[in-house]
């Protein structure tokens, strides 16, 4: 592949870490987003309040701060919980795990708004029809809401994934060896910061373009039966 000043392998390794982080955060974020949207639309007042507070707080504070809070806070919280059960050893939360949680939380907060919009866009009569023929609420969600949700939410989720991909760079601040840190290593060795940060920028651009193509393909595939008689 590409090889700049002998650092091609290192940058490639960093790229893989970035991709892993993005995909793991996406998975956690999708689950949190679905839970958030369901809680927001439920009849339960407590669930609604928690969901609203979650989305408001996460969307109002910088992603970098979320990463820092999770990275430094998780250790403290986990250790105090563990000491309640009589475990007093030092517990360390690695940058990767902290990054997945922080970015997953962020993605989930925005995704819950996308899912909420999508759920509301599904005609209510379909749910009522499901109820009328005796489906349980869970079955209605699984058989009626879920399959359509995916199609309606995809454009919004695609945009969020592009944002998530760029936010992965923030986890390098707490020491994850992703593209950014590998680039920094290369810079401190070669003293060519512009060259290497430009290379990093183009790696991110390439990842963005690949994601855009993939999202476009998925959208087309999802809508293949829409608009035809």
């Amino acid at each position, binding site marked *: 592949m590409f090889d700049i000043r002998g650092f091609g392998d290192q940058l490639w390794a960093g790229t893989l870490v970035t991709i892993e982080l993005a995909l793991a955060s996406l998975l956690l974020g999708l689950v949190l987003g679905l839970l958030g949207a369901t809680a927001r639309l439920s009849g339960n007042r407590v669930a609604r309040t928690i969901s609203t507070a979650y989305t*408001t707080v996460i969307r109002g504070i910088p992603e970098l701060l979320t990463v820092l809070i999770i990275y430094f806070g998780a250790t403290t919280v986990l250790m105090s919980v563990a000491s309640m059960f009589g475990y007093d050893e030092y517990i360390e939360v690695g940058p990767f795990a902290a990054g997945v949680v922080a970015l997953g939380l962020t993605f989930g907060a925005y995704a819950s708004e996308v899912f909420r919009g999508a759920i509301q866009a599904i005609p209510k009569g379909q749910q009522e029809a499901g109820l009328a023929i005796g489906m349980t609420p869970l079955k209605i969600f699984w058989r009626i809401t879920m399959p359509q949700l995916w199609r309606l939410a995809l454009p919004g989720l695609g945009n969020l994934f592009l944002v998530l991909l760029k936010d992965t760079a923030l986890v390098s601040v707490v020491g994850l060896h992703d593209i950014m840190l590998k680039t920094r290593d290369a810079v401190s060795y070669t003293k060519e910061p512009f060259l290497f940060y430009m290379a990093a920028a183009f790696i991110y*651009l390439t990842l963005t373009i690949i994601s855009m193509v993939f999202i476009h393909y998925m959208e087309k595939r999802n809508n293949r039966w829409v608009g035809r008689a």
Partner: protein
Amino acid sequence: MDFSVVIEYFPRLMQGALTTLELVLISGIIGSVLALPIGLARHSRRLWLRAIPYCYIFFFRGTPLLVQIFLVYYGLAQFEEVKNSSLWPYLREPYWCAIIAFSLNTAAYTAEILRGALAAVPKGEVEAAKTIGMRQVQLYRRIMLPRAFGMIMPAYGNEVILMLKGSALASTITLLDLTGMARTIIARTYTPIEIFLAAGGIYLVISMVIIMLFRQLERRQNRHLQPIAVRG
């Protein structure tokens, strides 16, 4: 948890918040001034005029802000020409590097918002303006831009919030903005949860003020679209 540290260091946090606001305000102003020609060029019918801003916008929206900051702060020092130029005293300062990176970044996002709004101006209004003989400049100054400004307000409000959150990255190049100040305090007191949560609270308050401000601005810009109150 011990929240007395928060009270003790609150003045320092506010000092950091002030730097954050300063960064957002200055780069917001520079960014929107830059965005106007870029957005107009992006809306042009000529392909070559549209292509340049397209590449600019694609680069700045497709790469992380952190890379852009590092490119300006660390990257420019690679060139001897830059180091020997009269601008070096500024380009050496993390403060101005952050302002440059944030301005270029927000200009790209704002230009794209502006393009969307210009494309959404109702066709009939443009045709009407042309029919009564307005020239291109008049058309833009009297019809297109005022209409577009009314439409971009909600989206631009979001962009300002994103800029506020992005400004936390200034702490990575040693600036003492709200996040940077929080990290400095934590290095001394080792109370990460308390101080970071306090900083998060301040960010939340600033976001809410910005949201309210833009709601007011939007109402003002679109006041001609409000239904007229009938007085009896």
